[in-house]
């Protein structure tokens, strides 16, 4: 069996389209995950007793097979993108919530006390001091969540929302490995590029953390 470059040339457009859909389906859930994890993480830092149950809930979601979650959500959202994205959002929480909490915990006591002593109120301290200092750790978690989401979303094809997952299943049905290989390589590339972009974003946002990394 040979790799069919002609097929690739003829299907560049549709592969590109699937790749874009794939990215959207994979990354929107990570964004939603962040929007949920930030306040949840802040609350867990504020009231420590919240953290263990919150983490358990996030981990329980992660333990449920994606197929089962799809089946649950199909009843409410049908065969739509939401049915794929909601489980992925829930999955991302198991990485993002602990990362937000760890990020906030990385603010040292003297820094927190200095901020208070200088007249930052609690909200201003959170927004101007604690969250900015948490950024490197939060982005580290976002990288993990984004990469795993890009690989997981292929399963969405089971309900007809798969992006490049479509090409993998189609290639299997037609016994046409070229399509499977092309889609797989593209998924890996998407993951690598997304990761590189996040690393760059982190360096631009936190020059103070980048140089430290180089020194040590």
């Amino acid at each position, binding site marked *: 069996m040979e790799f069919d470059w002609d097929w690739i040339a003829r299907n560049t457009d549709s592969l590109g389209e699937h790749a874009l859909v794939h990215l959207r389906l994979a990354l929107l859930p990570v964004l939603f995950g962040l929007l949920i994890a930030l306040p949840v993480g802040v609350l867990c830092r504020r009231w420590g007793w919240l953290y263990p149950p919150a983490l358990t809930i996030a981990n329980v979601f992660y333990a449920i097979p994606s197929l089962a979650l799809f089946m649950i959500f199909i009843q409410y959202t049908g065969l739509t993108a939401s049915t794929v994205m909601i489980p992925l959002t829930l999955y991302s929480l198991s990485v993002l919530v602990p990362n937000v909490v760890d990020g906030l915990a990385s603010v040292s006591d*003297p820094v927190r006390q*200095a901020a*208070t*002593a*200088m007249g*930052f109120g609690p909200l201003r301290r959170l927004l101007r001091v604690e969250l900015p200092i948490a950024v490197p750790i939060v982005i580290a978690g976002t990288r993990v969540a984004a990469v795993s989401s890009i690989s997981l979303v292929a399963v969405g094809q089971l309900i007809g929302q798969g992006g490049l997952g479509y090409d993998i299943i189609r290639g299997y049905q037609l016994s046409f490995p070229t399509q499977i290989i092309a889609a797989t390589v593209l998924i890996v590339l998407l993951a690598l590029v997304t990761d590189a972009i996040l690393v760059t974003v982190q360096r631009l946002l936190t020059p103070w953390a980048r*140089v430290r990394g180089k020194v040590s």
Partner: protein
Amino acid sequence: MITFEGVTKRYPGGTVALDDVSLDCPTGRITVFVGTSGGGKTTALRTINRMVEPTSGRVLIDGQDVREHKPAELRRGIGYVIQHAGLFPHRTIEDNIATVPYLLRWNKKKARARAHELMERVGLERSMARRYPFQLSGGQQQRVGVARALAADPPIMLMDEPFSAVDPVVRAELQDEFLRLQDELHKTIVFVTHDVDEAIKLGDRIAVFQTGGKLVQVDSPETLLARPADDFVAGFIGHDRGIRRLSFIPASSAPLSERDVLPADAPVERARDAAGGWVLVVDADRRPLGWAAAAGLPASGVVGDASLAPIGHTFDVAGDSVRAALDAAILSPSGRAVGVDAEGRLAGVADQQDLSTAIARAGADPRPAEAAEDGG
């Protein structure tokens, strides 16, 4: 003035961190809190800017209860420096320093200009303005911490062991600069330290705290060393408090002599019968050149030709203490300390006997704490 009126702090769990503390911290002066670890010094400091609320009693600033202000607003008017500086790692040095001006909504240009002015004040190179805190040494970070606390020119500064995390040389430097700065700024400062020497060097008044949050004595450093209120304070300031007290006896109280002092162009014959075996050689301007050993003089010529032993260090007759003079005497090859005036010219020589005379005179102070022991 900062006034503590019967301030007690009991933490949940029962720890009494402050036990009915009453105390004045005078305006424009440095009040130092010392005492055992866990004695409540930090807690006391934090009741001033409301980071700790007393269980009972009150804290007043110029007669006004601190609780009349909102905490955040109160704090913007009180500088705060802590042990590990607590600089914001994500902000440049200039923005760290300008923190409170930004909070007070100064415009950015004015705030930065103020930051640069302060960097100069505390001895930081302007080139560091755009660096991040981790790119600075501990001593430099501490200077930034001081500059940041001074940024909005608050009348009050609270300093919690600000210099204890740096090595002794840098610490001494920071202390000297701190005193120089205070001479210009006259802030009302409350300064916490573990280090008795630091307390004595910096404090106008020293408050000694004991475990359980009890304030046992508040006095000038001099009085504290001469008359510790009880055994705890005496023990805390150490067995060498006698030596430390010498810092408060002016060197000018020691008798000075001109014995065995010769100009460099004096003939060697005049040096041969020096009583102590050493002659201090001075130049035409009376600046000390060195010690000549009578035994090692050349056969003829002038004393300036002899090989001279270095003086070690001299003491300033007007500004130094007997402690510095005694140190100079001990380190001098002749055992005699060389006193100089502000221009570095010889004022006279004091041997250890002369210094003992000065100490004995100062020691004639009444010392009630010990007198009471004698009487009992």
